[in-house]
């Protein structure tokens, strides 16, 4: 097969509207976007700016009203429900702000669910789930129900679940929205590890700390992009000043 595309996600003129004539709301308004393979992209903006909607469009959870959307060289804006489901099974992993774990399944059963849906044998799915839980540092809580886990732990289970079918792209919608400072750090570490392993990440957030870990940061307002910042290559030498240790 051809070598993998360097641009993993490409959007052109993407639009999403709600409502009818006289009450049309443009959630996403003519957005052009390119995400390179292996890149970590953060999208920031105030509530209601359309960043979550954009993420849902990229992940195939919703269909655009207009525009083109390409994932790994394939055009996905016109796919049927069934093909979108396949996409979600194999190419894309989604992490939600509210975790959205099944309350009646243990951590392990939650993580193995996508693998089972993709047709893997129960034994294989279980092995993979154990491995992933180990990766996120929750191996000894594999048999706990979500109600017995803290917010940060639940989000880590959700991240492990998103990785179950080895996706190329991980989409995270406000992954630290419900978490405190310490839990946020846990999640940050995980994302760093995934990034280092070559996974492509698109994170929607209004937490500057998450945004700062990305390679590129896009600001969004009223459905369009208003600013883009490249963050790689930082400044050094001011740390001491920041800490208040500078000479007086």
């Amino acid at each position: 097969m051809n070598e993998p595309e360097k641009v993993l996600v490409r959007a052109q003129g993407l639009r999403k509207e709600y409502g009818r004539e006289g009450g049309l709301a443009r959630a996403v308004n003519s957005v052009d976007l390119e995400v390179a393979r292996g890149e970590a992209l953060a999208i920031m903006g105030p509530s209601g700016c359309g960043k979550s909607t954009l993420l849902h469009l990229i992940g195939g959870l919703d269909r655009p009203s207009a525009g083109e959307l390409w994932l790994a060289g394939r055009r996905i804006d016109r796919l049927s429900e069934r093909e979108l489901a396949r996409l979600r099974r194999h190419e894309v992993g989604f992490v939600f702000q509210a975790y959205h774990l099944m309350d009646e399944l243990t951590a392990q059963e939650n993580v193995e669910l996508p693998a089972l849906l993709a047709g893997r044998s129960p034994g294989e799915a279980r092995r993979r789930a154990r491995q992933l839980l180990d990766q996120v540092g929750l191996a000894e809580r594999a048999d706990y129900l979500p109600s017995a886990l803290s917010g940060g732990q639940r989000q880590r289970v959700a991240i492990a679940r998103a990785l179950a079918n080895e996706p190329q792209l991980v989409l995270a919608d406000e992954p630290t929205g419900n978490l405190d400072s310490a839990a946020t750090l846990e999640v940050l570490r995980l994302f760093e590890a995934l990034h280092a392993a070559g996974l492509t990440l698109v994170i929607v957030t209004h937490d500057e700390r998450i945004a700062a870990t990305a390679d590129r940061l896009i600001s969004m307002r009223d459905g369009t992009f208003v600013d883009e910042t490249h963050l790689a290559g930082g400044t050094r030498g001011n740390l001491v000043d920041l800490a208040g240790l500078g000479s007086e």
Partner: protein
Amino acid sequence: MGRLLLVCRLAVKDLRYRPVQALLLLLAIAAGAATLTLGLSLQGTTNNPYARTRTVTNGPDVVASFFPGNSNASGPATGVNPGGSNTPGTGAGEAAATSLLPLEHASGVVAHSGPYPVTWTLLQIGHTTGSAEVEGRNSGSSPVDHPRLMQGTWVRPGGVVVEAAFASAFGIHVGDSLRLGGTAFRVVGTAVTAAIPAYPGTCGRPIGCFLVGNIGSYNPGLVWATEADAKQLAGSSGPEAYLLNLKLNNPAKARAFVNRYDNNASSTAPTLYSWQSIRDGDAQVIAKVQKVLFTGSWLLALLALTSVAVLVGGRMTEQTRRVGLLKAVGGTPRFVAVVLLFEHVLVGLCAAGVGLLVGWQVAPLVDKPGAGLLGAPSAPSLTGTTVALVVAVALAVAIVATFVPAIRAARQSTVAALEDSARPPRRSAAVINLSAHLPAPLLLGARLVVRRPRRLLLSVFSVAVTTSGLVAVLIIHARSATWSLGPQVIQATTIISVMLIVLAAVNAVFIAWTTALEARHPAALARALGATPEQITTGLSVAFLPPALLGALLGIPGGIAIYDGARSGGGTTTLPSALWLVAMVILTLLVIAGLTAVPTRIGARRPVAEVLQAETA
């Protein structure tokens, strides 16, 4: 006063906010109330028509029957061989005269007619075969029991008059030609009488019939012919019976008269029957109909109750949350309970009213006395007890529907009620482990359906009740080949069967709908993880099949139990053929699968993001 007003406002507001759910609850309770009303109001409704017929035809107070050819004098019932030698025709006539003569002059008797010869024979009209009880009459009018012609003219040589209900059942009209015992006759009229019960009760208990050989394979109806024709039909052995109609000076003393003169010990004495027992014979059919309707209405009430339970269960989370909200803004648990109660009592009372109205209107439609008696029964009155009972049941249902969320919410903390952590879905490790080995749709379906075990039980119960009713009906029909039931009973069983199926279908839709509603979050999540909407719809539909199968299988012994319990008298229960049972089970599964597919399909198509966002709001 202010509190009361507040309670009213809150209750009415909630009902208007969710009108559809309130309406569905009302309909479900009303269905139960209507069937209960129907069952309770069918009481003794043959009185009037029988009385009217008796007056018009100058019906007898006592009928005496004499069977000349037998060692036992009382008329044998179906298919029993007479035994004993038969006396030749004229000798039989003399024997009848000697036996019956004393009765003509007994004290208290003011008039008599007969004795009339009676014989039983095969009847053929067109391609239909049946059997007939032929009573020989003269062409003039009789002092006692003068059958009232509904159509046509009275008997003449070669011309017979058919009893009206018999004619209606077999589609016999004036002018048709038929064969009695091989001989051709023309139908010259149809008539009603009060001396012998109408078809299909002609050979019911009171009079007894002489059914031998293949005559006994059919349920005989009454046919009047001239005496000569009747005696000719009887053949060389002569008429099998003679009937004497007596009129007393005091009709109320008919039973006493019968007790005095009926002599079971003597083999040659005639057997007497009072007009009350003939009326009961007529009423037997109605009694059967009533039994079918009464039993059926209890089954329907159970199904309606299941509907209510499903609907209330579906609203439970929302109601619990409402209770939590009211508590959070300062309502005491008692106040909260009062609001809930008020709301449901309103619904319950309206439902009782609707149910009573519907039941009262429908009862006359199913309760017709049939063609064999004159006129319509008095509209079954709604007695005070019926009204009170129905209202009480409807209120009880409404109250139970209130109390469960109210008590539940009162017991737990406000926070838990608000957060809806109150009713977490049930975890079944066994199902989760087993379903991992199934293909994706079944995996999802099994896990989704098992989240609410109570609803699963309700669906098994609903199917079981329905199939019990249907099996009981099948048993009735399986028996009817040997002893025909008549159109009214068939009508009643058909009505009950249709209503059972309709209510069961409604239940299936309710259950599927509440399940789809409740499962929309995990279903959306499954779709976000890669399941297709088709997989979810298929999975849920298939997941409801095992409980449906269990219910259908439970219905078989259930139906047998119902039949055994409802009918009086002994004898074995004939099982319906295995083919019918298997067909019923398969049909049930197909219908359930089809019905559950519709609501789940609608729910599975909403955009995933929308559903997931809504849950976090």
